[in-house]
């Protein structure tokens, strides 16, 4: 992700960085594009907004917050070295922090995420890069990633790869039978007749890989011989 907008995931959650030097109008339209492209990813998420040295008044800040809110994105805090921006943030009910904490290194490493646990019903895991999970994704759970999703376990809940718009994203799992699978802007759901979990397990056992083929999400049983790079016939 180049350009005036960048999204990073650190220990404290998602961070939306708005380039401090870019023209304000360009920044807003770039943000609009970014939010629309990743609307599934952002809906329900909470972020820290980092605007660097830029000074924002109440009205400009409100414009940004409204734009974010209309895409389901909630700001938790504003990071800026500008005193004016921080006071605008406080009057908008946000926490305001003077400068970004020193964890750029961990943010870079967070480009790919790793999680070792069961993702349970009602839990949402959101990551801006590739995501590896060692454990199961249960019914009612949601896993959303900007990049690929690899699950060393069973997938029964909702998985969404390429949620920032990447149609080349992949989802692989040892056992891939989610309620719903999404890649970029495409959605595919489990066939209705497989209502019982035990039936589902019988129908498509073993490792599988999901990707977009001909404008549709295609789930194939993993065959070690096939190279994952090429598109299936």
């Amino acid at each position: 992700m180049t350009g005036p907008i960048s999204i990073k995931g650190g220990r404290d959650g998602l961070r939306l960085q708005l380039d401090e030097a870019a023209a304000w109008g360009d920044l807003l339209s770039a943000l609009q594009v970014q939010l629309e492209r990743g609307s599934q990813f952002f809906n329900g998420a909470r972020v820290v907004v980092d605007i660097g040295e830029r000074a924002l008044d109440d009205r400009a800040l409100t414009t940004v917050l409204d734009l974010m809110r209309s895409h389901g994105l909630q700001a938790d805090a504003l990071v800026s070295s500008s005193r004016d921006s921080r006071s605008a943030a406080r009057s908008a009910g946000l926490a305001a922090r003077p400068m970004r904490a020193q964890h750029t290194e961990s943010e870079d490493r967070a480009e790919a995420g790793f999680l070792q646990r069961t993702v349970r019903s009602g839990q949402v895991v959101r990551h801006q890069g590739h995501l590896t999970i060692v454990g199961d994704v249960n019914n009612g759970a949601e896993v959303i990633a900007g990049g690929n999703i690899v699950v060393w376990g069973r997938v029964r809940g909702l998985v969404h790869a390429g949620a920032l718009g990447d149609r080349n994203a992949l989802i692989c799992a040892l056992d891939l039978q989610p309620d719903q699978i999404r890649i970029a802007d495409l959605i595919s759901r489990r066939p209705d007749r497989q209502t019982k979990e035990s039936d589902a397990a019988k129908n498509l056992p073993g490792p599988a890989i999901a990707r977009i083929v001909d404008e549709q999400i295609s789930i194939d049983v993993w065959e070690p011989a096939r190279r994952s790079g090429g598109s299936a016939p």
Partner: protein
Amino acid sequence: MARVITITSGKGGVGKTTSTANLGTALAILGAKVAVIDADIGLRNLDVVMGLENRIVYDLVDVIEGRCRLRQALIKDKKYADLFLLPAAQTRDKDAVNTDDMIALTNQMREDFDYVLVDSPAGIEAGFRNAVAGADEVIIVTTPEVSAVRDADRIVGLVEAFEKRSPRLVVNRIKPRMVNRGEMMSVEDVLQILAIDLIGVVPDDEQIVTATNRGEVAVLDKASRAGRAFQDIARRIAGEEVPFASLDEPHGMLDRFIGIFRTPRSRV
């Protein structure tokens, strides 16, 4: 010092209250001093299941709001002198209590008891949070149904988020014949999804319904299979290694005959 154990489930109607009443009684039978708290404020029924509804004078909210002392609100069981019930208020709702109140209340009770069992309301809202707030341990009750297991999974996630010890599981109302025919989720199916420790399996038992309506608990009925299962769970809570009883129910004369020669307890 008491261990505070909350019994919860997410979904309603899976047997939380019945489990609380039976486990409380079973622990008392083992000789422990036990208090059971009905945390389902506004929808109390633990008193009914234990047959104590006609003895209620004060309730949990009275204690928290200082209208009476804890001792005055505790109701002594009909049979066991070391088993007490703290009933829920019926005319109030969940907002009458907050998590700090519940922590203070359970801490106050730690001095006097070996076990404090908290019967949680269904759901994941304030009532559930109150019920879990003061707990050292959580026991999750589920039935072998997809919807109940899904809710139990949600609860496991929430309990883990509260940084409690990993909850333990009771699978209630299992029907071995249906499981054998592949028509019901097995205990293994449930455990595969929830991935937590099993503390007991309770077979479906129609006598529970009639006993509950009479205000008697199943553990007092020597013939009740569910009662025996709850007694086993109580011993496991107390730290005993109790093997899991075979769920296969005898079908006819021959089965019953063979059953005598089989080892009475085998692994599930």
